[in-house]
């Protein structure tokens, strides 16, 4: 089986500083993969490298095609939706306008309208906030909006950057539950970056552990969860 996304020996740079030291990972078709690690381990950088937001070397293949060196907007057009760190809400626009921006690359108006309803189905609270300025939504609602907006692209792969950040545990569980059903119903593969290891391990099939820009461990989440030493030394729960 060909991996949907495959990173090989990817290095990434912020100016002269190397933030990723040759990492390799892959996401299977329809799978959920999580990248775990502490602050500064290179989780966000990995997603940025995939989206062509920073200078990188190495190979990044999406559905067998090399996407390394492509512009961010071209990566989006291929069907990779990025739910960025801090949600990236367009604060002055309404909820609905934010969702429309998610469908920016699409011309199929009717299908866009259907997808809008689908997003409102997943997140009914967004329907109530339709005409409201997105900047006035709560943190949880903005996270839902960010995921909904990504869904409007009709992505095949979703990159999620710490969707649990700064949210109440109840809301986080709700959001993770919906992410699972998006994965199951819409067949969207996911690459999830998280600090909340316990939650992410429950959702994902596979995990990669990053430490200072390197993959130090990877494998099935099931086996990893059972291994006491991994749990205490890397996952901290």
């Amino acid at each position, binding site marked *: 089986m060909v991996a949907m996304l495959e990173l090989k020996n990817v290095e990434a740079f912020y100016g002269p500083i190397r933030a990723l030291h040759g990492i390799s990972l892959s996401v299977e078709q329809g799978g959920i993969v999580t990248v775990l690690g502490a602050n500064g381990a290179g989780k966000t950088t990995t997603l940025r490298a995939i989206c062509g937001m920073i200078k990188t070397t190495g190979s990044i293949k999406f559905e067998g095609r090399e996407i390394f060196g492509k512009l961010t*907007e071209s990566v989006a057009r291929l069907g990779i*939706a990025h739910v*960025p760190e801090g949600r990236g809400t367009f604060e002055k626009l309404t909820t609905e306008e934010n969702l429309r921006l*998610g469908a920016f690359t699409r011309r199929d108006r009717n299908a866009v309208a259907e997808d809008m309803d689908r997003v409102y189905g997943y997140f009914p609270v967004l329907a109530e906030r339709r005409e409201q300025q997105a900047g006035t939504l709560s943190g949880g609602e903005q996270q839902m909006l960010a995921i909904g907006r990504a869904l409007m692209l009709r992505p095949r792969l979703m990159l999620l950057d710490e969707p649990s950040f700064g949210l109440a545990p109840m809301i986080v569980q709700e959001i993770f539950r919906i992410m699972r059903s998006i994965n199951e119903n819409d067949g969207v593969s996911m690459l999830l970056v998280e600090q909340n290891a316990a939650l992410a391990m429950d959702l994902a099939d596979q995990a990669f552990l990053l430490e200072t820009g390197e993959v130090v461990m990877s494998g099935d989440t099931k086996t990893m969860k059972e291994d006491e030493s991994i749990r205490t030394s890397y996952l901290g729960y």
Partner: protein
Amino acid sequence: MAVDTIEEKLATRHAQSQLEAKLAFYKRIGLIGLIIFAVALPFLVSDFRTFQFTRVLYISIAVLGLNILSGYNGQFSLGHGAFIALGAYVAAIMMDRWGVPYYLTIIPAGLIGFIFGFLIGLPARRLEGLYLALATFGLALATPQILKKFEIITMGVQGIVVDKPEVPFGLPISQDQWLYFFTLMILLVLFWAARNLLRARTGRAFVAIRDHHMAAESMGVNAGFYKPLAFAIGGAYAGVAGALATITIQFVAPDSFGVFLSITLLVGSVIGGIASIGGAIFGGIAIVFIPNVAEEISKAAPWAIYGVILILFMYAMPSGIMGFINMLWRGYVKRLLTRT
């Protein structure tokens, strides 16, 4: 969170949609009232005042262009006057050299402003915030001297004089009144176009790039195209304003297009409300009339008064006149909502 029954929810939704319809109706009435007022205005004041209001109109068009560029797309320009100069000279040269009638100069001036704006917008993509402001400031600094340098085309410091447009169709109005209506018509078309543009896909792309350009690009928004497009549209509006300036004043000379003009435009834009369409009109009014008011208050130190007025504005209405009006409007809506 209180759990409402379905009936209660439906009832509030119904009340809300009724309220929304009512508010939309008020807005429409207000807009029509304003247009009627604008049409009646030249019959209520002297020809000189009419001439001043014509200036308000075309300056408002230029300010709207700047609002689209700086307010909606977040690219700050301290050189917008250069595009006015361009449009003004395009019109002057067409009328003076080639004998083109005044009304045929508007579209070419806008087109050339558009093209020039796009070209300036291409290198501007790499500059952000203050750096872009300084680079465009350079444009404003250079404009008068460039105009003087190309004397063969621009007639240098002596400038170009053109004829005052005649009143067409034997209408029983003065030339100044006709110029006012001509400018008003163009303004209405351009404001309507801006409103449609900004409410649609292009407007959303502009605002998305301004608010969060990384997120915008990861939605597939092509910032490399939309940023110069905002410059082009801003340039086109300023170009049209420039042509209208030539037609209204019947004279162009390099020194009218210096640094001060560009800064004045930004002042008008901020006073009116930089991320708004209607604010551009208040910007135009401010640009034309604040110096007059300042001079009436003190003949000896009008600029000191001007400065004080600016400071007061910034304190009283930090988001511009339009922002202030919106605040009052929201307060009114809120009171209506609590009453129902």
